[in-house]
């Protein structure tokens, strides 16, 4: 079972890897974007960890709703509302249970990813974070490790795609050949589950 502490560790682990990989994310956002994805997420997850230290959150749902709200209020850009919605909606789906099973979490994350697709209008293959998140959700039944691998593969698989959503779409065919920064950060988010969970 996963408790509030697990979700706090998830957020902390994500923050750590976002800080570590910020330059890489910004570099990926340069040829097909506006070179801010790394600093956007750094700002956001710094706020998330600060908020989780300051505010009491005793359920998994509360942790993720608070984290999502922080992202919405501090990131801006496309990724702020999208990642914010992902965490908020996942959190809301978890309700106010003190502990949730991995299956319940997988279900909730699917709801979160659906909300992101609805908000941003992106489908798999559009070269966005969705391309890492959708395979991750599908693989979550096989554990965090499998989800991490699936997200990572999904991110890598964005390279040959032509972007149809977000800034990269303005480039038309010139977006081909570059890995999507948002899919890359989504892979970091999913990989952090393994670091948080021990499983």
């Amino acid at each position, binding site marked *: 079972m996963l408790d509030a502490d697990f979700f706090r560790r998830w957020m902390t682990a994500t923050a750590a890897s976002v800080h570590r990989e910020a330059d890489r994310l*910004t*570099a990926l956002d*340069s*040829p*097909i*974007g*506006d*070179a*801010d994805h*790394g*600093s*956007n997420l750094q*700002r956001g997850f710094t706020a998330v960890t600060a908020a989780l230290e300051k505010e009491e959150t005793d359920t998994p749902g509360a942790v993720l709703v608070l984290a999502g709200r922080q992202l*919405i*209020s*501090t*990131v*801006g*850009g*496309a*990724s*702020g*509302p*999208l990642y914010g919605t992902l965490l908020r909606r996942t959190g809301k789906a978890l309700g106010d249970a003190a502990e949730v099973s991995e299956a319940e979490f997988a279900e909730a994350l699917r709801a979160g990813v659906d909300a992101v697709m609805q*908000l*941003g209008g992106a489908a798999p293959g559009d070269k966005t974070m969705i391309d890492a998140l959708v395979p991750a959700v599908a693989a979550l039944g096989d554990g965090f490790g499998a989800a991490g691998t699936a997200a990572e593969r999904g991110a890598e698989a964005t390279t040959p795609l*032509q972007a*149809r*959503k*977000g*800034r990269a*779409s*303005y*480039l*038309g065919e*010139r977006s081909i050949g570059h890995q999507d920064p948002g899919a890359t950060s989504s892979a970091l988010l999913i990989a952090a589950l393994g670091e948080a969970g021990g499983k």
Partner: protein
Amino acid sequence: MKMLINVPETVVADALRGMAAAHPELTVDVENRVVVRRDAPMAGKVGLVSGGGSGHEPLHGGFVGPGMLSAACPGEVFTSPVPDQMLRAAAAVNSGAGVLFIVKNYTGDVLNFDMAAELAEDEGIEIAKVLVNDDVAVTDSLYTAGRRGTGATLFVEKIAGAAADEGQPLERVQSVARQVNENSRSFGVALSACTTPAKGSPTFDLPAGELELGIGIHGEPGRERRAMMTSGEIADFAVQAVLDDLPPRNPVLVLVNGMGATPLLELYGFNAEVQRVLTQRGVAVARTLVGNYVTSLDMAGASVTVCQVDEELLRLWDAPVSTPGLRWGM
């Protein structure tokens, strides 16, 4: 790349502090990142709020003041502001007559303004929205995030600002703003990439002897790279792209806009070529504005925006305006 900054993390806050010092006629809330007209909210009048990533100055903060925006929300460099900022701005300028959000069409801006609109309506503020999407370089909008908002933003903010200051109702201010956007088209070129403080190096490589055609205003590369062209050739290409998309029947406003590092000397020379092409195509020019208005940090390059106007839009364009970035008649 060298910059005149302290550290990348504080550029937006530092700029707002400097803006506050230079413009006592504005209320600059540095902590919450909102720039507001001193006299807002104005009784019975519609509030006009815009915003977007920083790095495009004077857009938007420099267009706050009588006759133009009521408030602006600057985000991080090239990053849409967050909903909290727009909500705060809306609350500060709402007199009960409602607030128009002027949103450049980028995924981030649209999502954040939409969230803010929901929150504002929860607080009982009536919100209307206009989306600016004038950049003809983005084609196939079925397969993209749609046309970007660029130079036409200035026309929308100025003309809607005049309508709001006259006391026109929200619905009418919104429809004027839409009319301006629908009648505007832009095309931009880059001679160099720009450098964001966070990255510290140019956002893309542009070798000597080449230029990017069809760029946006966020340092992103354009649709196409070509061998360097003369000012006259660039004017031919850019004006053609604009006019082919919207052949104007009425006189037009022209904005010959520098991307930030192009000297005014070159911009005026470019304007001469733009006017030549417009004349050749039989387009009547009502007004021309030349300068660095909708910029991309230190990018060298220029964009051309053309806005077809009827008598009413022209009257609103000519109405007095007094902002740091655009001022006449008062």
